[in-house]
């Protein structure tokens, strides 16, 4: 008798999703799917809009990572305008991107994943939340809030709003940085450093106790994609894409946004609205890969900042080649957060950072343009086509969750096979299957908002459609 277990919706993710686990007649896991069940339609309803409206329109996709969409969209628009933005504008955008990365990684680590990491996968689900963390480790609770505030406040200082700032525009930014705001950000740095280091120390103290999870949390050879600089250091806002294979060998390098659709394809599976992104020359699914903090650290040779470089060297000791277990996304996220703080400090010491020339202007000079950046959770690409009047005729967004879709599905199956036995599921097993997805920190669509509680329902259904077991929390 074939049975199906559904985990619906998945808790502690940005947006909504559900997991279905299919059992064979012996009660063993046969297959597993991670479904994204929301439809957004941003690509379609942007058609007909003037291209210069796109950044502020696209920022509405997400309440957690609006800056990522803002930047990728602005870069796509600048490709259409065929302009190079002023140096200071580029630096300010980098700082904005770093601020968002730090606050997003803080949300992922402290608020979404630390309940599992600090309180344990088997701990009481009623207490396995930010309140449990605040009670058990108030210092980490405060550090999490401190890092969130650090990133959010920089975004607010630069863009006047913490969420959906309209400061980034095609051609640059609308306002230069003031000396007062620069000094305010500089004054926040010591606390930010302390909070990241506290998290790194706490994580390293507990990581070894998760050896079983490390073994089965999407732990398999794969390809890895991310932005990188010419000196092989990490990059989030500019640079070009590099794809490496499971051994670390470069498959393709120097992929600019203009070549993105030439080499990257999107496959469709009937159980999810999120597409499955792959490298075209290898086909689907062989050309699937992972993006985000772990792949970024797998790809680069250095972080480019002293403290993060020390952490990178330690991180790379986890394996001889690319690090395969997605559990290590947590560690990579903290290394990147440290890099983010260091990079913000470095940008603020740029002698031109207060320069008033922060915007280039131009009209439509090309009928097509693409922009790519690294969002906190992975590579993000925006690609637009316009008519002679600058009206959008076609838009395509390839988001990190799509890049990671195949790996997340494989990870769910791997963990389900490890933890769901004989047609039985326990709350601990359920949480571990969810935690695999949380390690990737996918953003499904938080701007749609969720009202009230999001109960977790896991249902086991037999081949006749009868519910034979159900777990609700």
């Amino acid at each position: 008798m074939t049975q199906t277990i559904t985990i619906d919706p998945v808790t502690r993710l940005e947006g909504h999703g559900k997991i279905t686990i299919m059992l064979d007649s012996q009660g063993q896991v046969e297959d597993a799917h991670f479904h994204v069940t929301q439809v957004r339609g941003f690509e379609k309803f942007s058609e007909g809009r003037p291209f210069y409206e796109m950044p502020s329109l696209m920022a509405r996709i997400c309440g957690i990572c609006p800056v990522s969409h803002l930047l990728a969209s602005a870069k796509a628009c600048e490709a259409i305008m065929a302009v190079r933005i002023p140096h200071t504008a580029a630096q300010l955008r980098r700082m904005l991107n770093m601020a968002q990365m730090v606050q997003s990684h803080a949300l992922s680590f402290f608020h979404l994943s630390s309940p599992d990491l600090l309180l344990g996968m088997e701990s009481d689900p009623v207490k396995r939340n930010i309140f449990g963390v605040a009670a058990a480790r108030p210092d980490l609770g405060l550090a999490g809030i401190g890092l969130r505030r650090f990133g959010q406040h920089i975004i607010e200082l630069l863009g006047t709003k913490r969420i959906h700032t309209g400061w980034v525009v095609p051609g640059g930014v609308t306002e230069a940085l003031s000396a007062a705001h620069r000094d305010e950000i500089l004054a926040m740095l010591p606390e930010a450093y302390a909070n990241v280091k506290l998290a790194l120390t706490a994580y390293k103290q507990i990581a070894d106790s998760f050896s079983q999870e490390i073994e089965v949390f999407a732990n398999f050879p794969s390809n890895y994609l991310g932005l990188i600089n010419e000196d092989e250091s990490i990059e989030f806002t500019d640079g070009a894409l590099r794809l490496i294979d499971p051994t670390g060998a470069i498959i393709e390098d120097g992929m600019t946004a203009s070549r993105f659709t030439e080499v990257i394809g999107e496959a469709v599976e009937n159980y999810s609205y999120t597409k499955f992104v792959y490298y075209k020359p290898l086909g689907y699914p062989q050309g699937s890969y992972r993006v985000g903090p772990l792949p970024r650290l797998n790809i680069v040779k250095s972080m480019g900042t002293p403290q993060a470089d020390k952490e990178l060297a330690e991180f790379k000791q986890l394996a001889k080649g690319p690090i395969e277990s997605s559990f290590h996304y947590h560690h990579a996220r903290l290394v990147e957060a440290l890099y983010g703080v260091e990079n913000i400090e470095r940008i603020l010491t740029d002698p031109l950072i207060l320069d008033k020339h922060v915007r280039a202007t131009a009209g439509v000079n090309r009928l097509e343009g693409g922009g790519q950046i690294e969002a906190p959770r992975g590579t993000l690409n925006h690609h637009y086509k316009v008519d002679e009047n600058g009206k959008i005729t076609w838009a395509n967004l390839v988001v990190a969750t799509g890049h990671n879709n195949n790996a997340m599905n494989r990870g769910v199956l791997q963990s389900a096979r490890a933890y769901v036995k004989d047609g039985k599921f326990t709350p601990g097993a359920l949480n571990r299957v969810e935690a695999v997805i949380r390690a990737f920190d996918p953003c499904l669509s938080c701007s749609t908002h969720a009202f009230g509680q999001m109960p977790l329902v896991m249902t086991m259904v037999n081949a006749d459609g009868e519910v034979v077991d159900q777990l609700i929390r």
Partner: protein
Amino acid sequence: MRGDDGVGLWLAEWAEQRFADQLGVRVIADHQWTPELAEDVARAQSVLFIDCSLDTAPGSLHLKPVEPAAPGQGINTHHQNAAELLALANELYHSLPSNPQLLTIGAGSIEFGEAFSAAVSAALPEACRLIEETILQMLSAPPPDPAN
């Protein structure tokens, strides 16, 4: 972009303008109530939360005291509600505002669109009056006794 879902933000921005010259009033207009707001809540003498609600009749207004949520109720962590923010403020900062209030306005439609429903649009003047009255009452309340 989600119709009446934006009414809380609209009202907050109205309050920001109304009390722009009023010392002691700070308006935070956000699309989501995120965990770091717990620090702002903890530092405030009084707090008025404003949000739309799917659980009440379209355009209906409800102003009521809000208590910290008891820890351990399966709370979401990517955004909080008012009771959860109060609980987090208490847990991390050991501080709570006196007499925190929550004003909700019943949503008529949260479909894609920038306009409010007719019911919510009609309720906006009364909502603004309630916000003004509540904030003025909060400002006139005596400061809490530090000994308590």
